[in-house]
């Protein structure tokens, strides 16, 4: 089998799984449907590994740098002679990396769900949706064309809608799915307009043609798109900011972050897959895809990305410290970590010595996928055992859930950036990049990093310590191998993932890049991280009233953070009070008084005139002709005023 076929098969296998389980699901025994889905995904993972090996060690490198490898090219929709949409698949360092992340985490989630979803009523449907999601996500990653990406982008939205609303008998799940769909749809509108602007400016939708035309200073397209300015920013900057709005929606950046915590209503393995490792990083991936254009053509847009990322990182970390639902803590943690990835991209630039942030952001995306998925799966197995999401129902679980305990601890150390775990390496790279180019972002990031260690160990101690373990508790993990093995495999990633010489493979230019690790840089972040862990241990390892006293001391700020800074309320206020009042009421009023009113008055007049005509309500007709004539007059006046 040639590489081209292998690459094509990677997304098609999950699609096959979806079609098989979705269409023929009724004829497949429930027990087997999960196994079938998992085996198919496993095959996809193996193919992804082969592809990665081939790309990184055989075909990808030419003359010392990685170049994109295009396959399955298809000319598709021609707009006009020089603008058309093509389809195809692309292999380049970041797409290959995402390929690995998506297939690996998805396979783990497939296997884990064999245990977690056992006995669920719509088990087969669940696996069908998982296959659909994986297919769309892989399609997104492999797109060679911004338009193709947009289509998969929307499909990812649809399949995640199905998965979030999986427990559709719960109203909260339905509401959450709807919220996720509508919020991201709004953001996608920005994306679509941005795409159209890029296409009009550069006469192409292909990523590499776009990059070629818009990232070389002096190219005629670049000059045209940066020449004119609107409200102080060039067309290109606007286009890229609009594209980034789409990315911010999917990646739950402030102020679009509101859908992600609610999306935790879906089954927990779904949260691990969609809301930790894959879909939510699509925004980061999108910015990375267009990175040369951002860096060369519109550094302003990149700065926006950086500040949005940094603010969200800090903002979400603060909220995470106050939540009591373990999945909500992890949700805000995810938002905060994606903020890290984006500000890493935001502080990067173009040119020697400036692109470190790009590699750092991608590196963090990679390591985060394994430890965050692990945290979610751990949370899933805890919820499975305790049947509650609330921290107060847990405590002292370290004896009855030893494997979950150890893997959760490893993941917590990784996310806190403690050496030598995976998160340490990627976070150090991010801090080092930020320190060089933007001190504000560096300090904001450092505070957010410190809070990260605090909230994650608060979670850890509340779950596994806090109360004295029940000596007679039976082991919750017995016989749950389907759930334990994926967690152990992910733990391997969380522990050793950082040792990969990431800069050798992924950089903005394709040339290898050394990620420096210097002792002087390490001391501060790691020291702060350790201090936070100690603080969390003191506060939460045993039951005490100290945390409550701190809460009381913090007063209003704590309450604001606990209520997620009232962002949801603000949205509600805007939609209910402003949008509905300003738009809904007048149109309802117009309808009731003007339309119905006129109709009724003419109607009643006619009723009085003739009983026979009342039967066909010809009164209305007179109103209709009135509108008709009004329209004619309006147009005549308008046109004569303008043109004659």
């Amino acid at each position, binding site marked *: 089998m040639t590489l081209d076929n292998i690459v094509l098969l990677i997304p098609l296998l999950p699609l096959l799984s979806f079609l098989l389980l979705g269409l023929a699901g009724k004829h497949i025994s429930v027990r087997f449907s999960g196994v079938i889905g998992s085996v198919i995904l496993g095959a996809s993972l193996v193919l992804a590994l082969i592809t990665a090996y081939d790309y990184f060690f055989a075909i990808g490198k030419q003359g010392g740098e990685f170049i994109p490898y295009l396959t399955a090219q298809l*000319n*598709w*929709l*021609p*707009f*006009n002679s020089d603008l058309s949409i093509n389809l195809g698949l692309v292999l380049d360092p970041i797409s290959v990396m995402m390929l690995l992340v998506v297939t690996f985490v998805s396979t783990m989630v497939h296997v884990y769900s064999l245990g977690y979803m056992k006995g669920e009523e719509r088990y087969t449907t669940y696996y069908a949706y998982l296959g659909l999601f994986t297919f769309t996500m892989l399609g997104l990653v492999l797109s060679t064309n911004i338009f193709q990406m*947009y*289509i998969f982008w*929307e*499909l990812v939205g*649809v399949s995640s809608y199905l998965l979030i*609303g999986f427990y*559709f008998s719960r109203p909260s799940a*339905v509401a959450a799915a*709807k919220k996720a769909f*509508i919020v991201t*749809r*709004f953001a996608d*509108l920005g994306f*679509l*307009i941005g795409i*159209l602007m890029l296409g*009009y400016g550069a006469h192409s939708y292909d990523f590499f043609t776009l990059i070629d035309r818009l990232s070389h200073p002096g190219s005629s397209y670049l000059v045209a798109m940066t020449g004119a300015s609107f409200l102080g920013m060039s067309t290109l900057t606007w286009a890229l900011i609009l594209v980034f709005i789409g990315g911010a929606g999917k990646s739950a950046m402030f102020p679009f972050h509101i859908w992600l915590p609610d999306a935790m209503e879906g089954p927990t393995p779904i949260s691990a897959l969609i809301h930790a490792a894959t879909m939510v990083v699509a925004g980061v991936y999108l910015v990375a895809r267009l990175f040369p254009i951002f860096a060369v053509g519109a550094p302003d847009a990149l700065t926006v990305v950086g500040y949005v990322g940094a603010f969200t990182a800090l903002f979400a970390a603060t909220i995470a410290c106050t939540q009591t639902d373990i999945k909500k803590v992890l949700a805000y943690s995810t938002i905060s970590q994606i903020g890290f990835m984006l500000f890493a991209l935001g502080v990067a630039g173009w040119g020697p010595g400036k692109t470190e942030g790009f590699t750092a952001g991608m590196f963090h995306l990679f390591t985060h996928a394994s430890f965050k998925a692990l945290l979610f799966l751990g949370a899933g197995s805890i919820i499975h055992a305790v049947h509650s999401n609330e921290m107060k129902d847990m405590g002292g679980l370290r004896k009855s859930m030893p494997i979950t305990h150890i893997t959760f601890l490893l993941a917590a150390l990784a996310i806190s950036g403690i050496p030598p775990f995976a998160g340490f390496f990627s976070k150090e790279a991010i801090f080092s990049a930020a320190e060089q180019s933007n001190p504000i972002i560096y300090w904001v990031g450092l505070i957010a990093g410190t809070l990260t260690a605090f909230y994650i160990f608060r979670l850890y101690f509340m779950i596994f310590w806090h109360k004295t373990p029940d000596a007679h508790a039976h082991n919750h993990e017995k016989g749950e191998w389907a759930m334990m093995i994926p967690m152990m495999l992910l733990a391997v990633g969380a522990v050793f993932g950082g040792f990969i010489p990431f800069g050798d493979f992924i950089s903005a230019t394709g040339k290898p890049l050394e990620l420096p690790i210097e002792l002087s840089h390490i001391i501060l972040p790691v020291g702060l991280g350790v201090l936070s862990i100690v603080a969390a241990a003191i506060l939460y390892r045993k039951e005490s009233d100290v945390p409550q006293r701190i809460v009381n001391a913090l007063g209003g700020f704590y309450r604001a953070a606990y209520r997620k800074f009232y962002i949801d309320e603000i949205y509600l206020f805007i939609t209910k009070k402003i949008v509905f009042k300003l738009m809904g009421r007048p*149109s*309802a009023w117009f*309808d009731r008084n003007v339309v119905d009113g006129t109709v009724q008055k003419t109607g009643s007049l006619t009723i009085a005139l003739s009983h026979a005509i009342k*039967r*066909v*309500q*010809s009164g*209305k*007709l007179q*109103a*209709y*002709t009135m*509108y*008709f*004539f*009004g*329209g*004619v007059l*309006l*147009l*005549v006046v*308008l*046109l*004569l005023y*303008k*043109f*004659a």
Partner: protein
Amino acid sequence: MINESIIIMRFEWLISLMIVVLFILNLMGVDKKPERFMNIVNVMLIINFVAGFIPIKDGYLFQGFYHTTALIVLEKNILNLGLLLIAFSAKQWIIESKRPAEFFMLMFSSVLGMYVMLSSGHILVLYLGLELSSLPLAALAAFNTDSRKSSEAGVKYILSSAFSTGITLFGISLLYGAVGNLGFDAIIQHIHEDALTLTAFVFILAGFSFKMSIVPFHMWTADVFEGAPTPVTNYLAVVSKGSVIFIFITVLYTVFGKLENAWLLAISVLSVMSMTVGNIFALRQQNLKRFLAFSSIAQVGFVLVGIAGASNMGTDSVVYFLVIYLLSNIALFSIVEAISDETGKVTISDYKGLYKSNPFYAIIFTVALFSLAGVPPTAGFFGKLFLLTSGMGSGMYVLLGFATINLVLSLYTYLRVVKAMFIDKEEERMPIIKKSLLTNFVLAVCLIGIIVLGFAGVFYQYIDSISSQL
């Protein structure tokens, strides 16, 4: 000469022949056995549809009063497709109505009018075609003589139609006064942008807008759509509107080409009003037929965005979109019809939990709604995309802004129905609708079309190639 006229007017001859055959069958009493009669009609429809694809040369007759081009042939074929699918899906209802010959005679006469209208090269021929296509519709809307609502729909349609025709004729006479000739070519040569011509233009525009149900000339739409029998509503929404839109583009682009600035402004205003009013009013409808009426108003508003492109791409994108619009709406109406025939239920709340009782219908309904809402990857997305891109060509950014806002608004409108079918709890279980073979065939064609057309760049290229020859 006679031979040539037969070949060039092939569409018109064939459908006239079919009307005559129906007449004879009616006299022979074949329509007393509706089942058998329907089979004959269906065979005729298939012949008519297939014959449409036999290549035909461009040409004109009667000193240019009548002409045909590849684009016109394509448009007639699209109408034929609509006619065929609607007749197929309505089979059960027509059999039960017991008057199949009458139904089809009226419908074919209306189609004949559309053919004439599309091929017209003279305003009067255009007017004759337009009237011939709409008069039988009034009789069709009132076809269900047992139902008061149906009769009311018929009366409303004929009265408002008469009013609109009056205005149009007035406009035509003003135009004659201004230009001195009503042949398309002569008008193109002599037309000027002056007060008289502009007034004439607005009056004619109002007539077209009435048929396309553009706000504020749309008032009849919801009542007639609701009252008329569902197959007739389907026909009104798809074939009738489609045919008028086809000729409307030609008239705007060629006959009134010199008034471009004026009509750009006029149709932008109409487009914004139609999209907004259509979407907002659709939001509060409970009856599905009324809902689809307002939805179609909003859709036509969107078509105007494409027309505002005022270029070749305008024609391409509108023809392309209308095919998708046709398939999506036929799917929707066929399901509404199947369900209301069986249970009499037509409101959105009746559709709660449809996914549980009739998953097949619920899924197709959803796909069709998504296509209308322009959700990728359904063909509707590409249709809207091309319309938007076309509109961008003339740089009407305010119009485009309204269009994009409405795109989001319409998503919400359509999701409301999807939500009812999939998520809401049913109040009363819908019986499992037994499906007829023909309806299933129609639904399958629509579904495949909605999914495949978006990816069929070939089709769009074909439209582009024939429209650029003009």
